[in-house]
């Protein structure tokens, strides 16, 4: 048996070599028709050929990669269809559902990257930008200054690396949304909590009315815990301290961090969470939604970002009624300077090549056309200023867009801001809620994060 396996490796290896050569060897010009401009981008081309109309090339084909599948992919396809109708260029979507950054990294390293990537996580954006994997927006012939007016202040900041614009936020969701069952709350005679103490008393009210474990939690997906921590930290300490914590100057041994974790542990308890802490650590994010909004709910409250709405109503339980069985309130306040701030998680578009069509696509993604088309699907909130509230198909999304637009400050998801080489913040928080020594965990985490920031330079 071992021998026959050994012989089989020969043809397999041969196939691997051939396919590796064929995919890596040709740098995929991928321009569709014969009308494409000279390679190298038209801004660099010294006007030799008869340049097409001012709108740029038509008939080019580019590949766009991101991590959406299912309903999110269908929504994005509508945007790509509109791009084709408006510019005559084709953008083909390639889904990379899991291990997005890893696959992108290896495609860049192997020299056959997709033309455009839409990526979450600023750590990777910075890493790719510094290693030359992604192009500056200005390298495409787009003037970054001309984009500023399209967006509310601060939206373009996360896409800047060392002062240069590399990525542009194309969609986001609020992370300051706390989901609840309006029917259960009114049955218990309770109202939506304004402060964190209100939240605690709401939980005990619900418990006294027969809901044993009101707070759903999907802590197996550890990023749900990073969002919990970030919201609390933002509200307790304000946007400036929040930004500092998730920057190279951040100090995780600062007492404010432990204070925020204590607040988190005061509601995420064995009594409040279905199955207790160990139970919650075995529950995935979507199963957490089902604990509150599924067919057999065991909880009434669930904290996570604005995307919960789409997943809950579209995937977990189609019989949910917005305003009756599902709704959200602002993440409860602490009486600090961050109470009116909002945290968002967003995706940045970046160019990996300067092939014909890339500039047109990136430009298109900054327009009100793409923003409105995408917003209408209900899948996202568009950062483009001119996208009106009427673009959103339902009240949940309208409210979410209004929350962020009306926030006193908007900050970016902190764990997505940390360097790619930082230790797993979610895993650290999984240990914190189990009751392990917080000070010890934080000091280990602090030195590893510091190391990762200095590695990034």
């Amino acid at each position, binding site marked *: *048996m*071992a021998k026959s396996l*050994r012989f089989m*490796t*020969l043809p397999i*290896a041969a196939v691997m070599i051939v396919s590796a050569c064929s995919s890596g060897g040709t740098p995929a010009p991928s321009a569709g028709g014969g009308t494409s401009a000279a390679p190298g981008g038209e801004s660099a081309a010294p006007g030799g050929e008869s340049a097409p109309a001012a709108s740029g090339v038509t008939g080019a084909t580019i590949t766009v990669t991101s991590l959406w599948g299912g309903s999110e992919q269908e929504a994005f396809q509508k945007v790509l269809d509109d791009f084709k109708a408006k510019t005559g260029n084709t953008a083909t979507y390639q889904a990379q559902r899991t*291990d997005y*950054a*890893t696959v992108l*990294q290896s495609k*860049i*390293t192997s020299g056959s990257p997709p033309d455009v990537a839409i990526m979450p996580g600023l750590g*990777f954006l910075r*890493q*790719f930008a*510094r*290693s030359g*994997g992604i192009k500056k927006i200005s390298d495409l012939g787009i003037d970054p200054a001309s984009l500023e007016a399209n967006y509310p202040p601060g939206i373009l900041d996360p896409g800047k690396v060392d002062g240069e614009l590399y990525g542009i936020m194309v969609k986001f969701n609020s992370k300051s949304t706390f989901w609840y069952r309006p029917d259960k709350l009114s049955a218990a005679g309770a109202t939506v909590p304004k402060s964190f103490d209100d939240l605690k008393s709401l939980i005990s009210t619900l418990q006294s009315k027969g809901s044993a474990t009101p707070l759903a939690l999907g*802590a*197996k997906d*550890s990023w749900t815990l990073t969002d919990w921590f970030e919201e609390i930290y933002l509200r307790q300490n304000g946007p400036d301290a929040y930004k500092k914590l998730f920057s190279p100057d951040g100090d995780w041994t600062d007492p404010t961090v432990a204070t925020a974790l204590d607040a988190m542990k005061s509601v995420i308890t064995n009594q409040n969470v*279905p*199955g*207790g802490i*160990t*139970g*919650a*650590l*075995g*529950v995935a994010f979507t*199963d957490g939604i*089902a*604990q509150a909004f599924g067919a*057999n709910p*065991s909880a009434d409250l669930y904290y996570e970002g604005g995307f919960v709405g789409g997943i809950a109503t579209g995937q977990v339980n189609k019989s949910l009624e917005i305003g009756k069985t599902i709704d959200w309130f602002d993440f409860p306040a602490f009486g600090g300077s961050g109470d009116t701030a909002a945290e968002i998680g967003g995706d940045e578009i970046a160019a990996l090549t300067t092939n014909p069509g890339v500039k047109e696509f990136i430009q298109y993604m900054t327009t009100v056309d793409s923003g409105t088309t995408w917003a209408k699907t209900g899948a996202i909130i568009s950062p483009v200023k001119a996208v009106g509230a009427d673009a959103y198909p339902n009240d949940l999304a309208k409210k979410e867009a209004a929350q962020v637009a009306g926030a006193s400050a908007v900050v970016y998801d902190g764990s997505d801001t940390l360097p*790619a*080489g*930082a*230790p*797993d913040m979610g*895993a*650290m928080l*999984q*240990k914190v809620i*189990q009751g*392990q020594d917080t000070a010890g965990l934080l000091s*280990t985490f602090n030195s590893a994060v510091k190391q990762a920031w200095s*590695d*990034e330079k």
Partner: protein
Amino acid sequence: MATVPQPIPTTATTTSPSPRRGLPSGVTALLFLLPALILLLVFLVYPVISTLRMSVDRGLGGNFSRFVGLDNYINVLQTPSFQTAIINNILWLIFYTSIVIFFGLVIAVVAMRVRYESIIKAVVFLPMAIAATALGVIWTFVYQLDPNIGLLNALLGVVGLGPVSWLGDPAWVNAALIAVGIWGSAGFATVILSAALKGISPEILEAARTDGANEFQIFWRIILPMVSLPISVLAVTLVVNVVKLFDIPYVMTQGGPGDASRVIALEFYKQDFSAGQFGKAAAVAVIMLVILIPVMIFNVRRFRSGSVV
């Protein structure tokens, strides 16, 4: 990347060609060896050397230009989650390997005594036909906390126990994952050991029975010693499986909760490779290689010694 060495082919070692006209015998031998040598150089020697080189470089984002000596090794060995991973791999090594061999042997011996042996073996072997990823997904459902989904907690509920958070409780998670591994591999062990048992000639067993040995004595004194070689080969295979174990923890827990179910290969992937730290990742790969070398030497010796399943 992760260079897991295959047993070195030993085919051409015993050739003693009679010298004829034409090429001298040494050149002929070399020509015959050449295809295998090229394959070895390309797929074994080069990757190992390249990985060693990468492991002493910072290697951030695939950029290998900053020599750091043994820093990566020191760094990796000091990482708490790597230490947890080593302990978990040892747990897997002890429990997974021994229980798989135990079940394989028991099922093979017992199945041999019944008429519907092939059916039993087919059923036990069936999980081998399922990809480990699918195995992980199936068992993730079985282990679900919600008794409406999780089969195991539904069964516990019937007898008034649980629910147990199999994948969320650090006290249970490794046992739960190892059980999945055992379920997936017991069939393989059964088939290998069953074939070995068939190789024992009936005369020996009959002679023992004639001499008055009971069935337990036959098992302990005759069957077990006679299949000890296949068992050791099987054990080596399972040990290699454990060292490069990745799929089950990756699919089922991502190494969580915290890092309670991390294993070396997952640590290598999660902490280092997907974070773009190729230097550290290469160091982990070299550590895995070093762990495997004694196993490989043992394996090659066994192959050389002749009788192999």
